[in-house]
C-alpha cells in the first residue's frame, strides 16, 4: 500500500469550561457507579502533567486502576466500561490540589490501599492523597460540587489588582462576553463570584484568591480576569493576563453547610483515611 496522503492525529482535546461536565470516554453515565461500593479519591495535578486534558487524565486513571489490580466495577452490556465518575473538568494548563474521582468497586477495599495502589503507578504529577468510601446513593461529583477556589497569578501590579477586585466586588452587575458551544452571549458574572482578594504580589504581578460558583454554570479563571479588566473603575481597560492557575478546593453544600467532597457523603462509620 502506498502511504495515505492524509494522516490523522486526534485533535488536542478542547478545554472544557470550568464548571461544565466534560464527557469522559470510557466512563459510563456520570453517576452510574453501580450497586457496589464507591470510593471517592482526591488527587493533585501538578507540574508538566498540567498540559494533558481532562480526558487524558481519565484514561491515565483507567490504566492505573488496571495496573494496580483494583476490583473496578464495569458496566453491563456490549461494551463494558469501568465505572468511574470524574468531577469538574480542569482546564488544560491549570494545576490543582483538589481533583476528585469516584470509582465503583465490586467489593470493599480499604480506601487507604486504593490511594497507595494508585500512587505507585500513576504518572508523575498525578498524586492521590486521600480517599473515602461513599454512602450508597451519594450524588455524583459534578452534580454536587457547588463552588471551587483558585489561586491565580495575573500580570498586573498589586495596586491595579486591588482596584480591579474592589470595583468588581462593589459592582451590582458585571457583564462579560462569553462563548459557549460556539454561541456568543453577554452574561452577568457578578453573582458567581463568592470571594475575591489579592493574596500576594511581586514585581508586575499579583496573586488572587477566588471562590466561584459552579451553578448555573461555572466561571473560568480567564473570564474572571477579563471581568476584572472590564468592570468600570480605575483598572478598567487594563489586561489582567493569566499566569499560573491552581485550583485549591472544591466545595459541596449540605443543609447550608459547606463541605469538602470527601466529607460530604461518607459511608456511615467509614472514617476518611489519609495516606501518610
Amino acid at each position: 500500500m502506498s502511504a495515505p496522503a492524509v494522516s490523522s492525529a486526534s485533535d488536542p482535546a478542547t478545554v472544557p469550561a470550568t464548571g461544565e461536565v466534560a464527557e469522559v470516554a470510557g466512563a459510563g453515565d456520570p453517576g452510574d457507579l453501580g450497586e457496589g461500593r464507591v470510593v471517592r479519591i482526591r488527587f493533585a495535578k501538578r507540574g508538566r502533567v498540567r498540559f494533558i486534558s481532562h480526558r487524558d487524565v481519565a484514561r491515565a486513571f483507567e490504566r492505573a486502576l488496571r495496573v494496580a489490580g483494583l476490583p473496578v466495577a464495569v458496566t453491563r452490556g456490549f461494551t463494558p466500561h469501568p465505572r468511574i465518575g470524574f468531577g469538574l473538568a480542569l482546564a488544560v494548563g491549570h494545576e490543582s490540589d483538589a481533583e476528585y474521582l469516584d470509582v465503583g468497586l465490586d467489593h470493599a477495599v480499604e480506601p487507604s490501599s486504593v490511594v497507595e495502589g494508585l500512587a505507585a503507578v500513576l504518572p508523575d504529577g498525578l498524586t492521590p492523597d486521600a480517599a473515602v468510601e461513599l454512602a450508597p446513593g451519594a450524588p455524583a461529583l459534578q452534580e454536587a460540587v457547588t463552588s471551587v477556589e483558585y489561586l491565580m497569578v495575573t500580570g498586573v501590579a498589586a495596586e491595579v489588582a486591588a482596584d480591579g477586585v474592589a470595583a468588581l466586588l462593589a459592582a451590582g452587575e458585571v457583564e462579560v462576553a462569553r462563548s459557549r458551544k460556539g454561541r456568543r452571549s453577554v452574561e452577568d458574572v457578578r453573582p458567581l463570584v463568592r470571594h475575591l482578594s489579592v493574596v500576594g504580589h511581586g514585581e508586575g504581578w499579583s496573586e488572587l484568591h477566588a471562590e466561584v460558583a459552579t451553578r448555573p454554570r461555572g466561571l473560568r479563571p480567564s473570564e474572571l480576569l477579563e471581568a476584572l479588566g472590564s468592570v468600570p473603575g480605575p483598572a478598567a481597560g487594563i489586561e489582567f493576563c493569566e499566569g499560573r492557575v491552581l485550583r485549591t478546593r472544591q466545595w459541596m453544600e449540605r443543609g447550608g453547610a459547606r463541605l469538602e467532597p470527601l466529607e460530604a457523603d461518607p459511608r456511615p462509620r467509614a472514617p476518611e483515611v489519609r495516606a501518610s
Partner: protein
Amino acid sequence: MEGGRRRPVHGPGRVSWLLVYPDTYEIGLPNQGLQILYEILNERADSVAERAYAPWTDLAAEMRAAGVPFFSVDDHRAARDFDLLAFNLSTELVYTNVLECLDLAGVPLRSTDRGPDDPLVVAGGHGAFNPEPMACFVDAFVIGDGEEAAGEVTEVVASWKAAGRRSRDDVLHDLALLPGVYVPSMYDVFYDGPALREVRPHHPDVPAVVDKRTIADLAAWPHPSTPLVPLIDVVHDRLNVEVFRGCTRGCRFCQAGMVTRPVRERPEEQVRTMVAGGLRRTGHDEVALTSLSTADFSGIDDVVAGIVDGSMGCGNVSVSLPSLRVDAFTVGIASDLQKGRRTGLTFAPEAGTWRMRQVINKMISEEDLYRAVDAAYSQGWRRIKLYFLTGLPTETDTDTLGVAELARDVVAVGRRHTSRATCTVSLGGFVPKAHTPFQWFGQNGVGELRRKIGLVRDALHRSGAQLRWHDPEATFAEGIVSRGDRRIGPVIEAVWRAGGRFQEWSEHFSLARWLDAMAAEGLDPDWYVTRHRADDEVLPWDHVSAGLHKDFLRQDWHDALAEHGLPDCRWTPCYDCGVCTGYALEHVVGSSVPPAGGSQGTGQDPSRGAVVPVELATVRGGAG
C-alpha cells in the same frame, strides 16, 4: 512523562542517541522500531537514548522566534548535544521534516558541511532501502533490522569519541565497514546524461554492495518489554506485540513484504509472556498482535484464545489483529475478538478483478471475498472497509471498474443481513517501490489516476458504498522520491526551503512546490515517476541489497505481466529469491503446515481463483 520512559543517564563513557521520528508525537510515539531501539540502547552500558518527534508548524515557528533548539522529549536536552541523531524514515513524504528537525537543531543540513563537533546523522527504516534521495543529508544509513547494528554503531562511535573525535571522515569510514551500514560519502555516482551509470565506493575496503541486516532469531530480541504509554491520545494506543517479522506471501506491490524476508516467528510462549507482561505493566485494555499477516502465525488460535478467555490472567482485554486474511478461519477469530462492539472490518483485496490480483500476486477469489463478507455481516458487523490500489501494472478500465463492482456486491451481500450495511472503499494510487518486482513499472500520472478515481466514483453513485481516495498529487510527489536518485536531494531541500513540511498532511501538501523544485534543478518529473525502467537499467538502489536477486525480481516482474501468480514459499519449494541462501538464514516457522482455512497458493489451484483468502484487519471503532 510517559509510562515506560527511561531516565536517561548521560556520561562520558556513553554514546548518546537522539531517536527522531520525523512526524508528530501522536503518529510517532507508537512506532515499534523506535521503541525497540530506545530500549536496547538504554539497556546497554555504553549508550543512552532519548526521543524526539517533529514539532508541528506552529511550535516550530515559536521555537525559532524564541531561539529554542530542537530538543528531546525525555529530558528536554538540545539535539546538538547528542552524538547521534537517528531518523526513522517510514515514508518518503516525511523527508522534508528531517531537514526541518536538523535545521531546528542547528545542525548543517548537508553532510559535507558538518564538522567533528556536529552530531552524526543516521537513518533507518524502510525508506533507507532507497537511501539516495536523502544521501546528501544523512551521514550513515542502517539498512534492515536495527537491533544488532545499533550496538555496533555505538561501539564505533565510542572509540571515535575516546580517541578525541578527530576527523569526521575517520568515523564515517569505520561505520562504512560495518555490515548493513551505508555511508553515502564513501561512494561516487556516475551518470550518462540523465541515466545512472554506476555507484562505486572510492575506498578499496568499503563494500560495493551494502547488504541489509537481518536478525536470525526474533526470540533473542523480546522488545519492547516495557512499552511507552503516552499520556495523550495517539494512534494505535494499545499494547503492540510483534509475532513475526517478514512475509513471503509475495504481493508484488508490497515493499515491506519484500525487504523483510525471511519469515521469523516469535515463539508462542514468548508472545504470551510479552502480552501478559506488557498488559500488566501498561494497564492497556487492548493488545495488537502485529506482523504483515497475523493469521499466518503458527500459534495464532491458541494465543488469541488464551488472551480472550482470561486464562493468561490478562483480565478483560480486547485483541486486534491488524493484518489478517479473510476466510472462514479468520472471520471466526475476528468474531472471537470483537465479542462486544462490532463496528468495522477492513479487507484489502487491493485490486478489482481476478486478473489484476494475479498480476499483483494477491490471489483472492471473489467467491472467497463474498463468503468472508457474508460471514462478517451475518455475525453482526455493519461496516466493511475495502482497500484498493489503482494505477497498477497492466490495469485496464475493466480492472478499475471492477473495484466498484466488488464494492456494490459487498453492499448487496450486506443488505441480505441488515438494511444498515455499508461499505467504504479506500482507493490509493500505486507508487512503485525499490526492491519489489514492480520497481521497473512507470507509475500512473496525476491525470490518469484522477481519471480512474473518477471512473470508480461515478460507478459507485447511489450504490450504498462510499469512496475515499488519496490525493493523486501526493501520490506523484511520493513517486518522485520513492525511486529517486541523489539528484532528488536538492529537490527535497528546495521543497523544505519553500515551506513544505508535513507533506503527508493534506493541509500542508502542495505538488507545485515539488514541480517548481524539480524544474529549478533541471529534472524531468516524468523521467522519475511515469517512465518504465528498462530491464537492464542501473537502478539508484542497486548498491543496496535486501537479499533479493535482481534476477528473481525481474522474473517475478515478467510473471506479473504474464498474469502468473506465485505461491508462498513457507509451505512450498523455494524459488531462490536469494534471501535465505544469500544470508544463510531460514524461515523460522513454528508449524510446517499451512494455517487452517486455506491460504494463498497452498494446495489450491491458483489458476481457477478458488478458495484463496484475502487480508482482513479488525478496526476498533468508537472512542478510545
